[in-house]
């Protein structure tokens, strides 16, 4: 289908939305007319009010003409002077694709690449083009792979896909918004009905009468019916337009394979989901490690660290790369399944370009370090940028873990505070255990129905895992507070806590793991059916001299 024809269809589908609205309004008006003509005025008025209520969201859907302005994703725009090499590559690829190069390149902070075009007059005229390029993607791809990604994105310009995107998007947003409008109303009607019935029940209960189940089944049903009509249309709409967007993806893949080479394109497609996963993991476990403690890695490291973890965990990533994501895609996903796209490209004849441009794509940037730092300033929020910058990653880990442990709040902490009405501290807990009140305290933990029903040993077995985990963390926090714990930072694996056997002692593997094991055993003893806190007390680091600090009010 040519781009003009596709534009026409997009227009018809969008017009269909308006037509549907007008049609439904006409039906409502007709029903009102018949009502007033044939039924007593009181009934007719009542029903007319209902129809007016239904008409409101319809009219609103029709009148909301403006597509909500998509929020400009925050990124770092780079000029040709900033990154000549990158610009040269993009222009060269645009030439090969046979399209106009974008007028702006924006570096982004996620593992993704995208293009956009601010088309004018419903996509009939082209407008300024933007290329969004995720720096983490550049860190993980080779230069050849990045060329494939760029060629794919530029291929979308060539197919005029970006021009029509606005039109298609408008129809989609409009539909979804109208459906949401109806459902919100149905929801609030239901909520009102629920409170009404609950109030009635409360009254009945106060009079000693049986209460009825709250049933909001038919409240809001009219709104839901309307929403259903629109949902059906939305399904038709999405299916029609999504077949198109999938075809566009295949076409862009084919042009990428032609320009950047078959192997580079296929391997880039394999690499992207791996990088997305790895970047998510990196952000979760490394970059935002210090968020709670209001700490940030050193300047430039928020993104720079991703390169380090990629090289440290190469073996792990190689395993992920060989398998393609297999999760079923929704019929409304605008992209075909990645496995499918890879298979199509790998079916193309070999082009003997497997060994091109093996260097890392990040080298296209003039100065990586400077770019990382500048990108941080562009994408981090003002609040995050106020966080303290640590000296290095080890410093970040130490600070974050110490803060986490100091702010520890386990279920046991909460139960203890509830039970003693005092600040939950480890010494207070141990004294309470010695006084034989552990199992009364355990009743204050969050319990499952089965645990609540259990008695004696069965109850103790139910609560023991929670007690063990909580008490173990409390002991760890104590070690941390007395500077008897060191964390080991590693790019290859998760951080390990290492306990220091004696103040000032050097950590060595055997004694540390021994200490760890004996703490586990001592915690078990303190939580046994007949608790004994002596072994745990013996292991705990000595309290500071000032007696006031530990003498928790009981």
């Amino acid at each position, binding site marked *: 289908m040519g781009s003009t024809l596709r534009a026409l269809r997009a227009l018809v589908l969008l017009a269909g939305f308006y037509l549907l609205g007008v049609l439904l309004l006409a039906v409502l008006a007709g029903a009102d007319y018949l009502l007033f003509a*044939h*039924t*007593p005025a009181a009934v007719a008025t009542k029903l007319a009010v209902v129809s007016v209520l239904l008409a409101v969201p319809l009219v609103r859907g029709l009148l909301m003409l403006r597509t909500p302005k998509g929020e400009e994703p925050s990124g770092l725009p780079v000029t040709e002077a900033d990154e000549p090499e990158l610009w040269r590559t993009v222009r060269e690829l645009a030439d090969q694709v046979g399209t106009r190069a974008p007028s702006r390149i924006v570096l982004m902070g996620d593992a993704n690449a995208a293009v956009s075009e601010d088309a004018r007059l419903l996509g009939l005229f082209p407008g300024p083009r933007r290329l969004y390029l995720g720096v983490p993607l550049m860190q993980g791809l080779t230069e050849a792979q990045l060329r494939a990604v760029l060629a794919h994105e530029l291929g979308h310009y060539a197919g005029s896909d970006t021009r029509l995107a606005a039109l298609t998007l408008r129809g989609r947003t409009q539909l979804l918004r109208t459906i949401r409008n109806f459902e919100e109303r149905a929801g609030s009607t239901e909520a009102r009905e629920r409170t009404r019935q609950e109030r009635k029940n409360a009254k009945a209960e106060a009079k000693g009468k049986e209460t009825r189940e709250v049933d909001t089944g038919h409240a809001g049903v009219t709104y839901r019916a309307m929403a259903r009509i629109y949902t059906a249309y939305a399904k038709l709409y999405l299916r029609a337009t999504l077949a198109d967007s999938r075809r566009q993806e295949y076409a862009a893949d084919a042009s990428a394979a032609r320009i950047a080479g078959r192997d580079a394109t296929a391997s880039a497609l394999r690499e992207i989901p791996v990088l997305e996963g790895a970047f998510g993991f990196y952000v979760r476990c490394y970059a935002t490690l210090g968020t709670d403690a209001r700490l940030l890695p050193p300047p430039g490291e928020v993104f720079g660290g991703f390169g380090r973890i990629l090289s440290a965990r190469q073996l792990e990533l190689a395993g992920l790369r060989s398998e393609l994501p297999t999760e079923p895609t929704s019929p409304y996903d605008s992209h075909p399944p990645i496995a499918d796209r890879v298979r199509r490209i790998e079916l193309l004849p070999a082009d003997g370009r497997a060994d091109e441009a093996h260097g890392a794509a990040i080298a296209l940037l003039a100065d990586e370090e400077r770019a990382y730092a500048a990108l941080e300033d562009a994408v981090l929020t003002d609040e995050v940028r106020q966080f303290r910058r640590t000296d290095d990653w080890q410093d970040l880990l130490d600070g974050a873990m110490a803060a986490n442990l100091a702010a520890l709040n386990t279920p046991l902490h909460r139960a203890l505070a509830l039970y003693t009405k005092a600040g939950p501290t480890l010494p207070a807990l141990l004294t309470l255990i010695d006084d034989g009140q552990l199992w009364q305290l355990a009743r204050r933990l969050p319990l*499952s129905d*089965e*645990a609540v029903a*259990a*008695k*004696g*040993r*069965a109850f103790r*077995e*139910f609560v023991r*895992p929670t007690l063990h985990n909580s008490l173990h963390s409390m002991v760890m926090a104590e070690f941390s507070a007395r500077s008897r714990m060191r964390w080991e930072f590693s790019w290859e694996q998760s951080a390990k806590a290492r306990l220091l056997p004696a103040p000032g002692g050097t950590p060595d593997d055997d004694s540390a793991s021994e200490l760890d094991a004996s703490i586990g055993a001592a915690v078990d003893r303190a939580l046994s*059916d*007949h608790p004994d806190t002596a072994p745990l007390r013996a292991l705990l680091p000595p309290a500071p001299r000032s007696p006031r600090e530990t003498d928790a009010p009981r």
Partner: protein
Amino acid sequence: MTVLLWILGILAVPTLIAVLWLGGVFVKEFFAQMSGAADGEDGAGGAEAAEQLGLLPAERQSTKSAGPLPTGWEAALDAVRGRGDGGGDWKTAAELLRGIGRDWERRSLAAYLLAEIAAEDDGWLLAWEADGPHGPDDPDAALVRARSTVILAWKIRGGKLASDTTGEQFAGFHRLLQRSREEIARAAALNPDDPTPYVTEIWTALGLGYPHSEMDKLWSELTARDPHHYEAHFSALQYWCKKWRGSEQLATEFAERAAAAAPLGSLLTAFPLIAHFEHDESDDSAADRTPEMIARVNAGLADAAAADPTHPRLPELRHLLAYYLALQDRDEAAIEQFRLVDGYVDALPWRYHGSGMTARYCRIRNLSAQAVTSAATSATAEQESAGAGTGAN
């Protein structure tokens, strides 16, 4: 306006018909319920007949065991239980097990009953382990410890289907069963001749899903120590059942093989009946009246008659026999078995009904009682009429 009334009228007709029909159904159901309550199957008629035969009413049935415990055990268990504060007397427990000695049937039952108490509260058991003459190496204390851990594990799992059991329950169940393996091995090492630790391990095997090869190994250890142990066979049959780790075929083969190899009086004839019971999903009693089932019941009757009358598991076989005799309409024989176990209902097939086990027991028993008494009255009536006939002649 009239048009609307017409429309309403037409709509009202089917609604009215539906309402009338529904009302009719309700009224019919109501009367059926009323008459059912008056002379239902487990109604007053059956209970009266049972009373006539000297059988106990439902409220006097004990749900604690399948039959009377051996003399002295009740008192000993009460002493061990104490006042429920863990302050029970461990010396009585030690004495009980020491007195039983190498009678493995009794030992496994006594150890189970003691472990059941310890699974509630093990204060006395801890005291035994601390203060006993053999200290923590007492084989009897070690056995009770292992059994109590397994019982506690099953208590935490609860008796519901896997789909109704929470992750927390399964986690506790598996944790305790794992712990029990060590304790079982210790108990077995402390008393190498005793099959009871292996009986206990079958329930660990069941819960943790030992592979069949492991189970067979465990079984050969067990049978080397006691080839015809009742509780061992009972537990192993559960393992081989379809609902646990086996299948109907495996369970039936196991039960038939055990029953065939056992000498008369060892009570293993109970297991083909249990295998049938565990896999019977039919709604009527046709499957319980097959020639095969009648033969199994007959074998059970002969076995029970030959058994030591004080065998602690004899009542369990009698409950099964009574149940199947009743289903096979051999009411006289059924009542004979009911009479021998009456007053205790904690046995298969009633046990699976939980708190309803007494009701279930009484219902089946009363049906048989009613059949027996009505047969007796009609017999006397016939005799009387026959006597009258001869008198007239």
